[in-house]
């Protein structure tokens, strides 16, 4: 469960987030909104890269804002980035193994968790390849494997479907939908692909100019008049 209370972020005069208060409990929650709405900023506050002007963030009762970013990761907060952050010079498995490094585990347990995550993301065949040889989809999957290996509590995904083909998004959809069953973790998913959000997110929150304009069951939210206005506006803008 994620409890956000009066969260505000200010970047020199711009309110990137403006008093956002929301509680997220669904296994997979979506975050949507037009470009510059504050979606990435929201994740950045959760992972500790952006310090909010006010507010509090709790993950299963744990006050996150008190912890440095790496400690949040060790507490089970995982994320992927809008610009994927796979290391080219490392093998796929090392790219994932790095998450388990700071965690105290037996050698056998470490190997088992790694195998399981690679298998779940369909990377077993390429696990020893250097990441530079991967295609865009495999790179996204490598980053996803990083977020689910071990025992994550909360997985934050920032536009994981960007730049993928229709078929690849379908694979991605299955992987994301299964995270809760696979690792018991709650997921927050940012994406501009409303079909993907509809397919995997039980709940969705909508941001616009840093304000929370709707939150609740995905179907209801997408029917909301304000949300439709914002989204139609965005689609005109981007099309």
């Amino acid at each position, binding site marked *: 469960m994620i409890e956000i209370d009066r969260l505000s972020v200010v970047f020199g005069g711009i309110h990137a987030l403006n008093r956002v208060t929301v509680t997220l409990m669904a296994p997979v929650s979506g975050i949507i909104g037009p470009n510059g709405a504050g979606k990435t900023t929201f994740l950045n506050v959760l*992972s500790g890269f952006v310090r909010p002007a006010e507010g509090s963030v709790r993950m299963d009762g744990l006050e996150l804002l008190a912890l440095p970013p790496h400690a949040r990761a060790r507490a089970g907060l995982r994320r992927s980035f809008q610009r994927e952050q796979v290391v080219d010079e490392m093998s796929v498995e090392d790219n994932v193994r*790095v998450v388990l490094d700071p965690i105290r585990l037996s050698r056998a347990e470490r190997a088992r968790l790694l195998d399981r995550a690679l298998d779940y993301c369909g990377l077993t065949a390429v696990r020893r390849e250097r990441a530079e040889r991967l295609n865009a989809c495999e790179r996204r999957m490598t980053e996803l494997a990083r977020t689910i290996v071990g025992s994550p509590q909360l997985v934050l995904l920032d536009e994981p479907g960007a730049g993928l083909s229709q078929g690849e998004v379908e694979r991605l959809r299955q992987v994301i939908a299964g995270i809760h069953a696979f690792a018991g973790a709650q997921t927050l998913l940012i994406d501009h692909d409303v079909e993907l959000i509809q397919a995997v997110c039980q709940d969705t929150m909508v941001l616009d100019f840093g304000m929370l304009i709707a939150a609740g069951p995905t179907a209801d939210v997408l029917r909301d008049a304000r949300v439709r206005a914002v989204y139609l506006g965005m689609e005109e803008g981007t099309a």
Partner: protein
Amino acid sequence: MAGQIHLPTAPSALSASAVLPVAAAERAPVNLSAFLVLGVLAIAVPLAANTLWLKVATGVMIYSLTAMSIAVLYRRLGLVSLTHVALMGCGGWVVLRLAHGFDTPFEVNLLCGGLGAGLAGTALAWPALRMRGLYLALVTLMAAGAYAILINVTQFPNGGDGWLGVAVRAVAFMPRPWIALSDQAYFVYCCGIVALGYALIGWHEATRAGRGWAMIRRSEAAAMSVGVNVTLYKVWGFALSGFLAGIAGGLLAGDLQFLDARSFPAAESVMIFALTIVGGAWHWYGALIAAALYRLAPAILNNAGVDGNAAYIFFGLALIQALATAPKGIAGQIAGLLDRLARRGSQG
């Protein structure tokens, strides 16, 4: 050289793999061929070289440790340190102090020298946590300058009394390790330590530290998001780098059996950094090439009747060439060549 230091201080622009396709040969920066080559050198050089060239070769070995210690910091964390000759001096000071003061075995002194310089290296991590690029390079350069002043005041221990151990008269020479008393044996000894240095770096890069550094290099945000404690890993990198430079300083003290405070100016740190880039920070043999340029090239010029300082002009040109056309240095070019040969061999 000082006018050029702004060139190598943009490591991300120079060496990011996005700029150049990574050569396929460059899989692990340290590999078995390093030990093979060192083994061959350890046998061949003492047989072939006279006293003069043996001295030069020993210098090459010692400075290749320094170059590899600079390279690991640059390669893994993208950090420019212009202070490694000063760190060698720290290691050398500790080794001389212990040898003259306590008669402890050379290996113990060497280890302590490494640890002492490693500690000094971690002090440099402090500014490195706050700044990067040119600013960090300048801070490390100032640290090297401060060291040069300090050591000129204190001098290196030479068997005297007191805490500093400096004697004005009756200067004593530090004994070499008993298994490596002759110049030949000492060269082989240095080869062995260089091999250990490669092993230490290789081990770091292949394990947890290497993965953490690689993440930091990708981006600090990405590193933090997978639980890497960026501060700790940077300090760790500096400690390892300082340790190796300190070992090099200790070996230098053992080679000469004393150290002269005047031979540790800040400019030498800049020079050895520049040569590390020219030699190539991304392949294990880059360090050997850098050290050969630093010690061997001037000796060859001198031998040919040319002023050895002419090498510095050549180094300046080589640095510009490296920065403009070969960000992975001479070693990178050799690796590319070997790669092409191997491909041709497998085709034909």
